[in-house]
Protein backbone atom coordinates (compact mmCIF):
# COMPACT_ATOMS: atom_id res chain seq x y z
CA UNK A 1 0.00 0.00 0.00
CA UNK A 2 1.20 3.48 -0.74
CA UNK A 3 1.57 6.15 1.91
CA UNK A 4 -1.44 7.98 0.48
CA UNK A 5 -3.67 4.94 0.60
CA UNK A 6 -2.62 4.27 4.16
CA UNK A 7 -3.08 7.69 5.71
CA UNK A 8 -4.95 10.04 3.38
CA UNK A 9 -8.45 8.95 4.24
CA UNK A 10 -11.74 10.73 4.68
CA UNK A 11 -12.10 9.15 8.13
CA UNK A 12 -9.44 11.50 9.50
CA UNK A 13 -11.31 14.49 8.07
CA UNK A 14 -14.45 13.32 9.87
CA UNK A 15 -12.41 13.08 13.05
CA UNK A 16 -11.31 16.71 12.59
CA UNK A 17 -14.93 17.79 12.05
CA UNK A 18 -15.97 15.96 15.20
CA UNK A 19 -13.29 17.78 17.20
CA UNK A 20 -14.05 21.19 15.66
CA UNK A 21 -17.79 21.12 16.33
CA UNK A 22 -17.04 20.70 20.02
CA UNK A 23 -15.99 24.36 20.02
CA UNK A 24 -19.52 25.50 19.13
CA UNK A 25 -21.40 26.92 22.12
CA UNK A 26 -23.48 24.44 24.14
CA UNK A 27 -27.24 24.98 24.21
CA UNK A 28 -28.27 22.02 26.28
CA UNK A 29 -29.67 22.70 29.75
CA UNK A 30 -27.92 19.61 31.10
CA UNK A 31 -24.24 18.83 31.55
CA UNK A 32 -22.71 17.55 28.30
CA UNK A 33 -19.24 16.26 29.34
CA UNK A 34 -17.43 17.44 26.19
CA UNK A 35 -14.16 16.37 27.83
CA UNK A 36 -15.24 12.70 27.98
CA UNK A 37 -16.25 12.76 24.32
CA UNK A 38 -12.91 14.31 23.35
CA UNK A 39 -10.97 11.67 25.28
CA UNK A 40 -13.00 8.92 23.63
CA UNK A 41 -12.65 10.39 20.12
CA UNK A 42 -8.91 10.97 20.47
CA UNK A 43 -8.41 7.47 21.84
CA UNK A 44 -10.38 6.02 18.91
CA UNK A 45 -8.38 8.06 16.40
CA UNK A 46 -5.12 6.99 18.05
CA UNK A 47 -6.13 3.33 17.68
CA UNK A 48 -7.03 3.95 14.03
CA UNK A 49 -3.72 5.68 13.24
CA UNK A 50 -1.58 3.11 15.04
CA UNK A 51 -3.45 0.31 13.27
CA UNK A 52 -2.89 2.06 9.96
CA UNK A 53 0.82 1.47 10.39
CA UNK A 54 0.49 -2.23 11.03
CA UNK A 55 -2.47 -3.62 9.07
CA UNK A 56 -1.14 -5.36 5.99
CA UNK A 57 -4.24 -6.09 3.94
CA UNK A 58 -5.97 -3.22 2.20
CA UNK A 59 -9.47 -4.62 2.79
CA UNK A 60 -8.80 -4.93 6.51
CA UNK A 61 -7.62 -1.34 6.77
CA UNK A 62 -10.56 -0.05 4.75
CA UNK A 63 -12.97 -1.95 6.96
CA UNK A 64 -11.47 -0.43 10.12
CA UNK A 65 -11.48 3.07 8.64
CA UNK A 66 -15.06 2.74 7.42
CA UNK A 67 -16.25 1.62 10.83
CA UNK A 68 -14.35 4.48 12.51
CA UNK A 69 -15.77 6.90 9.97
CA UNK A 70 -19.26 5.68 10.66
CA UNK A 71 -18.76 6.12 14.40
CA UNK A 72 -17.47 9.68 13.87
CA UNK A 73 -20.47 10.62 11.70
CA UNK A 74 -22.79 9.13 14.29
CA UNK A 75 -21.09 11.13 17.05
CA UNK A 76 -21.17 14.33 14.97
CA UNK A 77 -24.91 14.08 14.37
CA UNK A 78 -25.52 13.06 17.97
CA UNK A 79 -23.48 16.00 19.32
CA UNK A 80 -25.20 18.49 17.04
CA UNK A 81 -28.67 17.20 17.81
CA UNK A 82 -28.17 17.22 21.58
CA UNK A 83 -25.42 19.36 23.07
CA UNK A 84 -25.06 21.96 20.38
CA UNK A 85 -28.54 22.67 19.04
CA UNK A 86 -30.68 20.86 21.60
CA UNK A 87 -33.13 19.65 18.96
CA UNK A 88 -34.07 16.53 20.92
CA UNK A 89 -35.52 16.38 24.37
CA UNK A 90 -32.43 16.53 26.59
CA UNK A 91 -34.16 14.51 29.27
CA UNK A 92 -34.57 11.50 26.96
CA UNK A 93 -31.50 12.06 24.79
CA UNK A 94 -28.28 12.70 26.71
CA UNK A 95 -25.27 14.11 24.89
CA UNK A 96 -22.67 11.56 23.75
CA UNK A 97 -20.10 12.87 26.20
CA UNK A 98 -22.51 12.21 29.03
CA UNK A 99 -23.03 8.58 27.98
CA UNK A 100 -19.29 8.05 27.70
CA UNK A 101 -18.79 9.68 31.09
CA UNK A 102 -21.50 7.47 32.56
CA UNK A 103 -19.86 4.39 31.11
CA UNK A 104 -16.55 5.35 32.68
CA UNK A 105 -18.27 5.96 36.04
CA UNK A 106 -20.21 2.71 35.96
CA UNK A 107 -17.66 0.50 34.31
CA UNK A 108 -17.20 -1.84 37.26
CA UNK A 109 -20.93 -2.31 37.66
CA UNK A 110 -21.30 -2.79 33.90
CA UNK A 111 -18.48 -5.31 33.84
CA UNK A 112 -20.19 -7.37 36.54
CA UNK A 113 -23.42 -7.30 34.53
CA UNK A 114 -21.64 -8.29 31.32
CA UNK A 115 -19.95 -11.15 33.12
CA UNK A 116 -23.26 -12.35 34.46
CA UNK A 117 -25.03 -12.19 31.06
CA UNK A 118 -22.22 -13.67 29.01
CA UNK A 119 -21.64 -16.33 31.64
CA UNK A 120 -25.24 -17.50 31.47
CA UNK A 121 -25.30 -17.49 27.67
CA UNK A 122 -22.05 -19.41 27.42
CA UNK A 123 -23.11 -21.97 29.99
CA UNK A 124 -26.46 -22.69 28.34
CA UNK A 125 -24.97 -22.56 24.86
CA UNK A 126 -22.00 -24.83 25.57
CA UNK A 127 -24.16 -27.31 27.46
CA UNK A 128 -26.54 -27.42 24.49
CA UNK A 129 -23.88 -28.02 21.84
CA UNK A 130 -22.12 -30.62 23.97
CA UNK A 131 -25.35 -32.60 24.09
CA UNK A 132 -26.84 -31.72 20.69
CA UNK A 133 -23.86 -32.43 18.42
CA UNK A 134 -23.07 -36.03 19.51
CA UNK A 135 -26.77 -36.83 19.70
CA UNK A 136 -27.42 -35.34 16.25
CA UNK A 137 -24.45 -37.23 14.82
CA UNK A 138 -25.58 -40.51 16.29
CA UNK A 139 -29.25 -40.20 15.36
CA UNK A 140 -28.53 -38.69 11.95
CA UNK A 141 -26.10 -41.52 11.19
CA UNK A 142 -28.72 -44.12 12.03
CA UNK A 143 -30.74 -42.80 9.13
CA UNK A 144 -33.97 -44.60 9.92
CA UNK A 145 -34.23 -42.76 13.24
CA UNK A 146 -33.14 -39.62 11.43
CA UNK A 147 -36.40 -39.17 9.57
CA UNK A 148 -38.62 -39.48 12.62
CA UNK A 149 -36.24 -37.34 14.63
CA UNK A 150 -36.34 -34.52 12.11
CA UNK A 151 -40.14 -34.24 12.46
CA UNK A 152 -39.90 -34.28 16.23
CA UNK A 153 -37.16 -31.65 16.06
CA UNK A 154 -39.31 -29.48 13.82
CA UNK A 155 -42.09 -29.65 16.38
CA UNK A 156 -39.91 -28.71 19.33
CA UNK A 157 -37.91 -26.05 17.54
CA UNK A 158 -41.13 -24.37 16.43
CA UNK A 159 -42.02 -23.64 20.07
CA UNK A 160 -40.58 -20.17 20.84
CA UNK A 161 -38.17 -20.89 23.71
CA UNK A 162 -39.39 -17.89 25.67
CA UNK A 163 -42.62 -19.72 26.50
CA UNK A 164 -40.59 -22.22 28.51
CA UNK A 165 -39.79 -19.48 31.01
CA UNK A 166 -42.88 -19.84 33.26
CA UNK A 167 -42.45 -23.60 33.37
CA UNK A 168 -38.73 -23.16 33.99
CA UNK A 169 -39.49 -20.89 36.92
CA UNK A 170 -41.81 -23.52 38.40
CA UNK A 171 -39.22 -26.21 37.79
CA UNK A 172 -35.96 -24.61 38.84
CA UNK A 173 -34.87 -22.75 41.96
CA UNK A 174 -32.92 -19.71 40.72
CA UNK A 175 -33.14 -17.13 37.98
CA UNK A 176 -29.76 -18.22 36.76
CA UNK A 177 -30.74 -21.87 36.40
CA UNK A 178 -33.96 -20.92 34.59
CA UNK A 179 -31.99 -18.75 32.17
CA UNK A 180 -29.46 -21.49 31.48
CA UNK A 181 -32.31 -23.93 30.94
CA UNK A 182 -34.10 -21.67 28.46
CA UNK A 183 -30.91 -20.87 26.55
CA UNK A 184 -30.09 -24.56 26.53
CA UNK A 185 -33.43 -25.27 24.84
CA UNK A 186 -33.09 -22.32 22.47
CA UNK A 187 -29.70 -23.57 21.31
CA UNK A 188 -30.27 -27.30 21.53
CA UNK A 189 -32.95 -27.63 18.84
CA UNK A 190 -31.32 -25.58 16.07
CA UNK A 191 -27.93 -27.22 16.69
CA UNK A 192 -29.48 -30.67 16.84
CA UNK A 193 -31.47 -30.03 13.65
CA UNK A 194 -28.40 -28.54 11.94
CA UNK A 195 -26.25 -31.51 12.92
CA UNK A 196 -28.80 -33.99 11.64
CA UNK A 197 -29.33 -32.25 8.34
CA UNK A 198 -25.55 -31.98 8.03
CA UNK A 199 -25.15 -35.71 8.62
CA UNK A 200 -27.95 -36.62 6.22
CA UNK A 201 -26.37 -34.34 3.60
CA UNK A 202 -22.84 -35.77 3.75
CA UNK A 203 -21.72 -36.81 0.27
CA UNK A 204 -21.97 -40.56 -0.18
CA UNK A 205 -18.57 -40.52 -1.84
CA UNK A 206 -17.00 -39.18 1.34
CA UNK A 207 -18.66 -41.95 3.36
CA UNK A 208 -17.56 -44.61 0.87
CA UNK A 209 -14.07 -43.25 1.00
CA UNK A 210 -14.10 -43.66 4.78
CA UNK A 211 -15.66 -47.10 4.60
CA UNK A 212 -12.99 -48.49 2.32
CA UNK A 213 -10.41 -47.26 4.82
CA UNK A 214 -12.11 -49.44 7.45
CA UNK A 215 -12.56 -46.64 9.95
CA UNK A 216 -13.98 -47.63 13.33
CA UNK A 217 -17.47 -46.46 14.28
CA UNK A 218 -16.31 -43.65 16.62
CA UNK A 219 -13.85 -42.50 13.97
CA UNK A 220 -16.60 -42.53 11.36
CA UNK A 221 -18.72 -40.28 13.56
CA UNK A 222 -16.09 -37.90 14.91
CA UNK A 223 -13.30 -37.88 12.29
CA UNK A 224 -15.46 -38.08 9.17
CA UNK A 225 -19.14 -37.28 9.68
CA UNK A 226 -18.53 -34.47 12.18
CA UNK A 227 -16.13 -32.42 10.04
CA UNK A 228 -18.18 -33.15 6.92
CA UNK A 229 -21.30 -31.68 8.52
CA UNK A 230 -19.55 -28.87 10.39
CA UNK A 231 -20.93 -26.09 8.21
CA UNK A 232 -24.53 -27.06 8.92
CA UNK A 233 -23.72 -27.42 12.61
CA UNK A 234 -22.38 -23.88 12.65
CA UNK A 235 -25.57 -22.62 11.01
CA UNK A 236 -27.50 -24.05 13.94
CA UNK A 237 -25.01 -22.65 16.46
CA UNK A 238 -25.25 -19.15 15.00
CA UNK A 239 -29.01 -19.28 15.20
CA UNK A 240 -28.86 -20.51 18.78
CA UNK A 241 -26.36 -17.85 19.78
CA UNK A 242 -28.34 -14.92 18.42
CA UNK A 243 -31.60 -16.18 19.92
CA UNK A 244 -29.83 -16.74 23.25
CA UNK A 245 -28.94 -13.08 23.67
CA UNK A 246 -32.44 -11.95 22.77
CA UNK A 247 -33.91 -14.38 25.25
CA UNK A 248 -31.52 -13.62 28.04
CA UNK A 249 -31.85 -9.85 27.92
CA UNK A 250 -35.64 -10.20 27.78
CA UNK A 251 -35.61 -12.55 30.73
CA UNK A 252 -33.27 -10.27 32.67
CA UNK A 253 -35.69 -7.41 32.23
CA UNK A 254 -38.41 -9.50 33.83
CA UNK A 255 -36.86 -11.09 36.85
CA UNK A 256 -33.13 -10.73 37.35
CA UNK A 257 -30.85 -8.99 39.86
CA UNK A 258 -27.95 -8.57 37.44
CA UNK A 259 -27.22 -8.76 33.76
CA UNK A 260 -27.32 -6.21 31.00
CA UNK A 261 -31.09 -6.48 30.48
CA UNK A 262 -31.55 -5.80 34.19
CA UNK A 263 -29.27 -2.75 34.00
CA UNK A 264 -31.28 -1.21 31.15
CA UNK A 265 -34.68 -1.96 32.69
CA UNK A 266 -33.69 -0.90 36.22
CA UNK A 267 -32.45 2.55 35.24
CA UNK A 268 -35.19 3.27 32.73
CA UNK A 269 -37.67 2.65 35.55
CA UNK A 270 -35.97 5.52 37.38
CA UNK A 271 -36.01 7.70 34.29
CA UNK A 272 -32.20 7.55 34.09
CA UNK A 273 -32.00 7.50 30.30
CA UNK A 274 -28.29 8.17 30.20
CA UNK A 275 -27.68 4.82 31.83
CA UNK A 276 -30.40 3.24 29.67
CA UNK A 277 -28.63 4.32 26.49
CA UNK A 278 -25.26 3.34 27.93
CA UNK A 279 -26.70 -0.11 28.61
CA UNK A 280 -28.15 -0.42 25.10
CA UNK A 281 -24.83 0.44 23.48
CA UNK A 282 -22.90 -1.91 25.76
CA UNK A 283 -25.26 -4.78 24.91
CA UNK A 284 -24.67 -4.05 21.22
CA UNK A 285 -20.89 -4.16 21.69
CA UNK A 286 -20.99 -7.33 23.75
CA UNK A 287 -23.17 -9.19 21.25
CA UNK A 288 -20.97 -8.03 18.36
CA UNK A 289 -17.81 -9.07 20.21
CA UNK A 290 -19.14 -12.55 21.04
CA UNK A 291 -20.45 -13.07 17.50
CA UNK A 292 -17.16 -11.85 16.07
CA UNK A 293 -15.15 -14.31 18.17
CA UNK A 294 -17.53 -17.11 17.28
CA UNK A 295 -17.23 -16.32 13.56
CA UNK A 296 -13.45 -16.35 13.91
CA UNK A 297 -13.70 -19.82 15.42
CA UNK A 298 -15.99 -20.89 12.61
CA UNK A 299 -13.71 -19.70 9.83
CA UNK A 300 -10.75 -21.31 11.58
CA UNK A 301 -12.47 -24.68 11.88
CA UNK A 302 -13.74 -24.45 8.29
CA UNK A 303 -10.44 -23.15 6.89
CA UNK A 304 -10.19 -26.20 4.63
CA UNK A 305 -13.16 -24.96 2.62
CA UNK A 306 -12.20 -22.75 -0.24
Amino acid at each position, binding site marked *: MTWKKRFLRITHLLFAVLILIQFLPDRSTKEVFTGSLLVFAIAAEAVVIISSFFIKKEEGLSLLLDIAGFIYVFLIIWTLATAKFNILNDMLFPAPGKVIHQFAEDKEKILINIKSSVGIVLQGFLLAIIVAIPLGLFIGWNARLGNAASYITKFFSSIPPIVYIPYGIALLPTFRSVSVFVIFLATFWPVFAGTMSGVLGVDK*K*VIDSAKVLNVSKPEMLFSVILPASLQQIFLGCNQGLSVSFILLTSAEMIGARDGMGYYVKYYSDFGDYTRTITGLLVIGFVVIAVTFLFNKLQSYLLRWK*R
Partner: protein
Amino acid sequence: MSTNKIEIKNLTVNYTENKKSFNALHDVSFGVGKGEFVSVIGASGCGKSTLLSVLEGLYTPAGGRVEIDGKELHGTGTERGVVFQHYSLFPWMTTRNNIAFGIKQARRDIKKTERLKIADEFLHKVGLDGFGSKYPSQLSGGMQQRAAIARALAMNTEILLMDEPFSAIDAKNRVILQDLLLDLWEGDGFEQRKTVVFVTHDIDEAILLSDKIVVLTAHPGTVHEVVQVPFERPRRREDLIKTDEYGKFRNKLLSLLYNDIAERIGGEEVVL
Protein backbone atom coordinates in the same frame (compact mmCIF):
# COMPACT_ATOMS: atom_id res chain seq x y z
CA MET B 1 -6.78 -71.55 -10.31
CA SER B 2 -6.13 -71.56 -6.60
CA THR B 3 -2.98 -69.48 -7.06
CA ASN B 4 -5.03 -66.39 -7.82
CA LYS B 5 -5.03 -63.55 -5.29
CA ILE B 6 -8.54 -62.51 -6.23
CA GLU B 7 -11.05 -64.96 -7.63
CA ILE B 8 -14.36 -63.68 -8.97
CA LYS B 9 -16.85 -66.50 -9.43
CA ASN B 10 -20.19 -66.22 -11.25
CA LEU B 11 -20.78 -62.77 -9.87
CA THR B 12 -24.27 -61.34 -10.37
CA VAL B 13 -25.25 -57.88 -9.14
CA ASN B 14 -28.68 -56.31 -9.21
CA TYR B 15 -29.05 -52.58 -8.90
CA THR B 16 -32.17 -50.92 -7.62
CA GLU B 17 -32.81 -47.43 -8.77
CA ASN B 18 -36.16 -45.64 -8.45
CA LYS B 19 -37.69 -48.92 -7.27
CA LYS B 20 -36.73 -50.59 -10.56
CA SER B 21 -34.28 -53.40 -10.32
CA PHE B 22 -31.92 -54.18 -13.14
CA ASN B 23 -29.16 -56.60 -13.75
CA ALA B 24 -25.86 -54.70 -13.60
CA LEU B 25 -23.53 -57.69 -13.74
CA HIS B 26 -24.38 -61.17 -14.88
CA ASP B 27 -22.30 -64.27 -14.27
CA VAL B 28 -18.93 -62.50 -14.24
CA SER B 29 -15.94 -64.72 -13.57
CA PHE B 30 -12.22 -64.07 -13.78
CA GLY B 31 -9.15 -64.31 -11.63
CA VAL B 32 -6.40 -61.88 -10.72
CA GLY B 33 -3.00 -63.40 -9.94
CA LYS B 34 -0.80 -62.21 -7.11
CA GLY B 35 1.15 -59.15 -8.21
CA GLU B 36 -0.86 -58.90 -11.40
CA PHE B 37 -2.13 -55.62 -12.84
CA VAL B 38 -5.56 -56.17 -14.34
CA SER B 39 -7.62 -53.53 -16.08
CA VAL B 40 -11.35 -53.74 -16.57
CA ILE B 41 -12.56 -51.83 -19.61
CA GLY B 42 -15.93 -51.37 -21.24
CA ALA B 43 -18.36 -48.76 -22.45
CA SER B 44 -20.00 -46.60 -19.81
CA GLY B 45 -22.82 -48.39 -18.06
CA CYS B 46 -21.27 -51.84 -18.48
CA GLY B 47 -21.01 -52.29 -14.74
CA LYS B 48 -17.25 -51.96 -14.41
CA SER B 49 -17.52 -49.55 -11.52
CA THR B 50 -20.15 -51.75 -9.92
CA LEU B 51 -17.73 -54.64 -10.16
CA LEU B 52 -15.13 -52.58 -8.33
CA SER B 53 -17.68 -51.57 -5.64
CA VAL B 54 -18.16 -55.27 -4.95
CA LEU B 55 -14.39 -55.76 -4.66
CA GLU B 56 -14.19 -52.72 -2.37
CA GLY B 57 -16.83 -54.35 -0.17
CA LEU B 58 -19.29 -51.48 -0.57
CA TYR B 59 -21.82 -53.53 -2.52
CA THR B 60 -23.15 -56.97 -1.81
CA PRO B 61 -23.66 -59.18 -4.86
CA ALA B 62 -26.95 -60.95 -5.49
CA GLY B 63 -25.19 -64.10 -6.59
CA GLY B 64 -21.74 -65.60 -6.94
CA ARG B 65 -18.77 -64.75 -4.79
CA VAL B 66 -15.45 -62.99 -4.58
CA GLU B 67 -12.55 -64.75 -2.90
CA ILE B 68 -9.36 -63.19 -1.70
CA ASP B 69 -6.63 -65.71 -0.91
CA GLY B 70 -9.32 -68.36 -1.10
CA LYS B 71 -11.51 -66.73 1.54
CA GLU B 72 -14.88 -65.27 0.67
CA LEU B 73 -15.01 -61.50 0.79
CA HIS B 74 -17.38 -59.82 3.23
CA GLY B 75 -17.40 -56.03 3.42
CA THR B 76 -14.41 -53.75 3.40
CA GLY B 77 -11.00 -54.90 4.50
CA THR B 78 -7.58 -53.59 5.44
CA GLU B 79 -5.86 -55.69 2.75
CA ARG B 80 -7.39 -53.48 0.05
CA GLY B 81 -6.48 -49.87 -0.72
CA VAL B 82 -8.77 -47.82 -2.92
CA VAL B 83 -8.39 -44.80 -5.19
CA PHE B 84 -11.62 -43.24 -6.46
CA GLN B 85 -12.17 -40.83 -9.31
CA HIS B 86 -13.24 -38.13 -6.84
CA TYR B 87 -13.20 -37.53 -3.10
CA SER B 88 -10.70 -40.14 -2.09
CA LEU B 89 -9.19 -37.54 0.22
CA PHE B 90 -10.98 -35.91 3.13
CA PRO B 91 -11.21 -32.18 2.39
CA TRP B 92 -10.80 -31.21 6.08
CA MET B 93 -7.45 -32.92 6.45
CA THR B 94 -4.16 -31.68 5.04
CA THR B 95 -2.63 -34.01 2.47
CA ARG B 96 -0.10 -35.18 5.05
CA ASN B 97 -2.84 -35.94 7.58
CA ASN B 98 -4.93 -37.65 4.92
CA ILE B 99 -2.09 -40.04 4.21
CA ALA B 100 -1.29 -40.50 7.90
CA PHE B 101 -4.97 -41.21 8.59
CA GLY B 102 -4.93 -43.92 5.91
CA ILE B 103 -1.79 -45.46 7.38
CA LYS B 104 -3.40 -45.45 10.83
CA GLN B 105 -6.39 -47.40 9.51
CA ALA B 106 -4.30 -50.02 7.75
CA ARG B 107 -1.53 -50.40 10.31
CA ARG B 108 -2.66 -49.61 13.84
CA ASP B 109 0.71 -50.45 15.38
CA ILE B 110 2.57 -47.50 13.86
CA LYS B 111 3.06 -44.43 16.08
CA LYS B 112 1.88 -41.00 15.02
CA THR B 113 5.29 -39.45 14.43
CA GLU B 114 6.23 -42.48 12.37
CA ARG B 115 3.00 -42.20 10.36
CA LEU B 116 3.74 -38.57 9.52
CA LYS B 117 7.24 -39.53 8.47
CA ILE B 118 5.92 -42.24 6.15
CA ALA B 119 3.36 -39.75 4.80
CA ASP B 120 6.12 -37.30 3.88
CA GLU B 121 8.10 -40.09 2.28
CA PHE B 122 5.19 -40.99 0.01
CA LEU B 123 4.41 -37.35 -0.75
CA HIS B 124 7.98 -37.20 -2.00
CA LYS B 125 7.49 -40.33 -4.11
CA VAL B 126 4.52 -38.82 -5.93
CA GLY B 127 6.25 -35.47 -6.37
CA LEU B 128 4.28 -33.50 -3.82
CA ASP B 129 7.17 -32.30 -1.66
CA GLY B 130 6.15 -29.17 0.20
CA PHE B 131 2.42 -29.76 -0.28
CA GLY B 132 1.94 -31.77 2.91
CA SER B 133 0.27 -28.97 4.83
CA LYS B 134 -2.06 -27.97 1.98
CA TYR B 135 -5.73 -28.91 2.00
CA PRO B 136 -7.13 -30.85 -0.97
CA SER B 137 -9.12 -27.79 -2.09
CA GLN B 138 -5.82 -25.95 -2.48
CA LEU B 139 -4.50 -28.59 -4.90
CA SER B 140 -5.31 -29.18 -8.57
CA GLY B 141 -7.25 -32.29 -9.57
CA GLY B 142 -4.05 -33.98 -10.69
CA MET B 143 -2.28 -33.22 -7.43
CA GLN B 144 -5.25 -34.54 -5.46
CA GLN B 145 -5.02 -37.83 -7.32
CA ARG B 146 -1.29 -37.95 -6.66
CA ALA B 147 -2.03 -37.60 -2.97
CA ALA B 148 -4.76 -40.24 -3.18
CA ILE B 149 -2.29 -42.63 -4.82
CA ALA B 150 0.30 -41.75 -2.19
CA ARG B 151 -2.21 -42.65 0.53
CA ALA B 152 -3.17 -45.96 -1.09
CA LEU B 153 0.52 -46.89 -1.52
CA ALA B 154 1.50 -45.71 1.97
CA MET B 155 -1.15 -47.98 3.45
CA ASN B 156 0.91 -50.75 1.90
CA THR B 157 -2.05 -53.02 1.20
CA GLU B 158 -1.61 -56.17 -0.82
CA ILE B 159 -4.38 -55.17 -3.19
CA LEU B 160 -5.00 -51.84 -4.88
CA LEU B 161 -8.40 -51.04 -6.38
CA MET B 162 -8.56 -48.04 -8.68
CA ASP B 163 -11.84 -46.73 -10.05
CA GLU B 164 -11.14 -44.53 -13.09
CA PRO B 165 -8.61 -42.57 -11.07
CA PHE B 166 -7.39 -40.45 -13.98
CA SER B 167 -10.54 -39.92 -16.02
CA ALA B 168 -11.30 -36.50 -14.51
CA ILE B 169 -7.75 -35.27 -15.16
CA ASP B 170 -6.73 -33.23 -18.20
CA ALA B 171 -4.93 -35.12 -20.97
CA LYS B 172 -1.43 -33.87 -20.23
CA ASN B 173 -1.55 -34.59 -16.51
CA ARG B 174 -3.22 -37.93 -17.14
CA VAL B 175 -0.18 -39.08 -19.10
CA ILE B 176 2.12 -37.91 -16.32
CA LEU B 177 0.08 -39.72 -13.68
CA GLN B 178 -0.06 -42.94 -15.70
CA ASP B 179 3.72 -42.90 -16.01
CA LEU B 180 4.03 -42.19 -12.29
CA LEU B 181 1.77 -45.08 -11.36
CA LEU B 182 3.63 -47.39 -13.75
CA ASP B 183 6.98 -46.36 -12.26
CA LEU B 184 5.83 -46.79 -8.69
CA TRP B 185 4.16 -50.13 -9.31
CA GLU B 186 6.93 -51.63 -11.42
CA GLY B 187 9.52 -50.16 -9.07
CA ASP B 188 8.34 -52.38 -6.25
CA GLY B 189 10.11 -55.31 -7.84
CA PHE B 190 8.42 -58.48 -9.01
CA GLU B 191 8.02 -60.09 -5.58
CA GLN B 192 6.52 -57.12 -3.76
CA ARG B 193 4.27 -55.87 -6.53
CA LYS B 194 0.75 -55.11 -5.47
CA THR B 195 -2.20 -56.84 -7.03
CA VAL B 196 -4.11 -54.14 -8.89
CA VAL B 197 -7.60 -54.02 -10.33
CA PHE B 198 -7.90 -50.88 -12.40
CA VAL B 199 -11.16 -49.71 -13.98
CA THR B 200 -10.91 -47.42 -16.99
CA HIS B 201 -12.52 -46.57 -20.29
CA ASP B 202 -9.21 -45.48 -21.79
CA ILE B 203 -7.76 -48.24 -23.98
CA ASP B 204 -4.25 -46.79 -24.13
CA GLU B 205 -4.19 -46.45 -20.37
CA ALA B 206 -5.23 -50.07 -19.98
CA ILE B 207 -2.57 -51.34 -22.41
CA LEU B 208 0.23 -49.28 -20.93
CA LEU B 209 -0.43 -50.36 -17.35
CA SER B 210 -1.89 -53.86 -17.42
CA ASP B 211 -0.77 -57.46 -17.59
CA LYS B 212 -4.29 -58.50 -18.45
CA ILE B 213 -7.38 -56.68 -19.70
CA VAL B 214 -10.93 -57.77 -18.96
CA VAL B 215 -13.35 -56.47 -21.59
CA LEU B 216 -16.91 -56.14 -20.34
CA THR B 217 -20.04 -55.79 -22.45
CA ALA B 218 -23.08 -53.99 -21.18
CA HIS B 219 -26.73 -54.74 -20.32
CA PRO B 220 -26.17 -56.82 -18.40
CA GLY B 221 -22.44 -56.57 -17.76
CA THR B 222 -20.72 -59.78 -18.74
CA VAL B 223 -17.14 -60.69 -19.50
CA HIS B 224 -16.70 -60.46 -23.26
CA GLU B 225 -13.09 -61.53 -23.30
CA VAL B 226 -9.98 -61.60 -21.14
CA VAL B 227 -6.90 -60.53 -23.08
CA GLN B 228 -3.26 -60.92 -22.01
CA VAL B 229 -1.18 -57.84 -22.79
CA PRO B 230 1.86 -59.14 -24.69
CA PHE B 231 4.33 -56.34 -23.95
CA GLU B 232 7.47 -56.74 -21.85
CA ARG B 233 8.06 -54.84 -18.64
CA PRO B 234 9.40 -52.40 -17.68
CA ARG B 235 7.39 -50.48 -20.23
CA ARG B 236 8.02 -47.06 -21.54
CA ARG B 237 5.23 -45.23 -23.26
CA GLU B 238 7.44 -43.68 -25.96
CA ASP B 239 8.91 -47.05 -26.98
CA LEU B 240 5.65 -48.92 -26.71
CA ILE B 241 3.39 -46.81 -28.90
CA LYS B 242 5.91 -46.75 -31.76
CA THR B 243 5.71 -50.50 -32.38
CA ASP B 244 3.41 -52.13 -34.94
CA GLU B 245 2.33 -54.68 -32.35
CA TYR B 246 0.94 -51.90 -30.23
CA GLY B 247 -1.28 -50.66 -33.06
CA LYS B 248 -2.48 -54.14 -33.85
CA PHE B 249 -3.23 -54.94 -30.26
CA ARG B 250 -5.03 -51.66 -29.79
CA ASN B 251 -7.20 -52.34 -32.86
CA LYS B 252 -8.04 -55.76 -31.54
CA LEU B 253 -9.26 -54.27 -28.28
CA LEU B 254 -11.18 -51.57 -30.11
CA SER B 255 -12.98 -54.12 -32.22
CA LEU B 256 -13.84 -56.13 -29.10
CA LEU B 257 -15.34 -53.02 -27.56
CA TYR B 258 -17.18 -51.71 -30.59
CA ASN B 259 -18.41 -55.01 -31.97
CA ASP B 260 -20.37 -55.14 -28.82
CA ILE B 261 -21.85 -51.72 -29.45
CA ALA B 262 -22.65 -52.57 -33.08
CA GLU B 263 -24.39 -55.77 -32.01
CA ARG B 264 -26.46 -54.00 -29.44
CA ILE B 265 -27.82 -51.32 -31.74
CA GLY B 266 -28.72 -54.00 -34.25
CA GLY B 267 -26.30 -53.40 -37.10
CA GLU B 268 -27.21 -49.78 -37.65
CA GLU B 269 -24.44 -47.52 -38.78
CA VAL B 270 -22.24 -46.46 -35.94
CA VAL B 271 -21.07 -42.87 -36.00
CA LEU B 272 -18.18 -42.34 -33.65
